[in-house]
């Protein structure tokens, strides 16, 4: 079975640390991910609000390209960004459920010599790590267990709903299981799947930043060292607006927000730079026992 990697635009810019840490962790687990050549933007949520069929066609081109790499076998396409993950799943589903969409996509693809037969399986890295790699192999790869580290796992919206099947949409546990396998403690909290405000943090600030603030506030109340995220937009919102949030809501908001892959990589002893730690605005807070133990591999 072939596992291809679909980065999406964010993992090449604001979410670069997600790509760096993801690829490093998968390489350490000897589960290489190969980037889908010639990929294009998935269309995200914005395209859907302007032109739905074009949005589906954009996403479908990536599916058709991925399928070509399978030599007749199903291909797994790993999409770490929550929006890409959702859009690719939605396109597959709606192509089948809504005939006019399926027809428009097939016709358009055909006009440029492409075809999609439905042989691609869209996977989130959390899903692949739990179901394909398995917690046993991950435990075996942990060289620096995260003892004493307390983490709030934040899944956000589109990784777990409405199309995902690998975890529970109300109380997902895959990230918790993964980080516990790395030796960390994870907290039970009510904000796991609450919206971070998405694009609203930049467009309608009071609405968007209020969302992010409520999540950080709940995490701070539980005394965690860090919030772990699985989406580039969630990470950006929760980390980069802490200054404005502190002023707006008269609170001292300070919380490490890292990609779950960075935290897993840390437990595997991968070095800071490989994991893109230098790109974080707020360094990953670590319990004293873990400090000074990182080494280059």
């Amino acid at each position, binding site marked *: 079975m072939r596992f291809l990697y679909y980065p999406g635009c964010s993992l090449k*810019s604001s979410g670069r640390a997600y790509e760096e840490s993801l690829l490093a962790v998968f390489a350490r687990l000897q589960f290489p991910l190969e980037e889908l050549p010639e990929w294009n933007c998935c269309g995200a949520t914005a395209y859907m609000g302007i032109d739905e069929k074009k949005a589906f066609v954009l996403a479908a081109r990536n599916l058709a390209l991925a399928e070509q790499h399978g030599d007749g076998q199903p291909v797994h396409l790993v999409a770490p960004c929550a929006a890409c993950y959702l859009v690719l799943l939605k396109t597959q589903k709606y192509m089948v459920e809504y005939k006019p969409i399926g027809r428009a996509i097939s016709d358009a693809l055909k006009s440029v010599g492409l075809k999609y037969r439905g042989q691609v399986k869209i996977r989130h890295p959390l899903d692949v790590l739990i179901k394909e790699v398995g917690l046993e192999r991950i435990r075996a790869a942990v060289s620096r267990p995260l003892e004493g580290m307390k983490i709030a796992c934040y899944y956000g*919206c589109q990784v777990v709903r409405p199309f995902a099947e690998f975890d529970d949409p109300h109380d997902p546990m895959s990230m918790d299981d993964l980080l516990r396998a790395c030796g960390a403690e994870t907290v039970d909290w009510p904000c796991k799947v609450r919206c971070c405000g998405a*694009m609203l943090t930049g467009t309608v600030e009071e609405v968007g930043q209020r969302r992010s603030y409520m999540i950080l506030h709940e995490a701070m109340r539980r005394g965690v060292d860090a919030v772990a995220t699985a989406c580039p937009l969630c990470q950006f919102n929760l980390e980069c607006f802490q200054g404005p949030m502190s002023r707006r809501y008269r609170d001292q908001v300070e919380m490490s927000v890292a990609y779950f892959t960075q935290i897993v990589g840390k437990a595997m002893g991968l070095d800071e730079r490989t994991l893109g730690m230098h790109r974080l605005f707020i360094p990953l807070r670590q319990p004293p026992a873990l400090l000074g133990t990182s080494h280059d591999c």
Partner: protein
Amino acid sequence: MPGLQIQRRVKYQEELDADFPRRVADMPGAADLNRCIQCGTCSATCPVSSFMDLTPRRVVAMTRAGFKEEVLRSNTIWLCASCYSCTVECPKGIKITDVMYALKRLAIQERAYPRHFPTPVLAREFFHKVRQTGRSNEGQIATVMILKTNPLKLLRQIPLGLKLLVKGRMSLWTEKMSGNKRQLQDLLDYMDTHKELR
């Protein structure tokens, strides 16, 4: 009493747009609109309904009744962040997020969207960027959006922009698509020229 304004606060049937609910329900995912039992679960679960002029429940009711103007000019459709909570929780299985998308598209088609409200401006900038290059560039799109909606805000954003640049999290140019870039353009051109697919 001079200056006393008398204004009717209800609409009568002939003032409503009877065709509107059908046009919305024709869009993918929105067909189940008519199954709504007005329980309000969508409004309760929506993380931003406290800021909306019409809650999602009211949007559904008013769409069905034909209140086209009110619905298309509401801030609700532009505050929906596509978190899909309502879609997952709706006891009748109505894909409310898709209904919101359908209303966004209609608002843009009918030019009923607020011209300087950042959300539709951002969506349009994103659309054009991807149309041109096949990929988005968050920094560029956000900058143009701020310039078009609230140029003064750009000054406030400079520290964040610089920090992102230093950390290598924003680039001034868009990473090029490798290989057959023409293919994507042809694909989107095909959609433009084959209106029967719309």
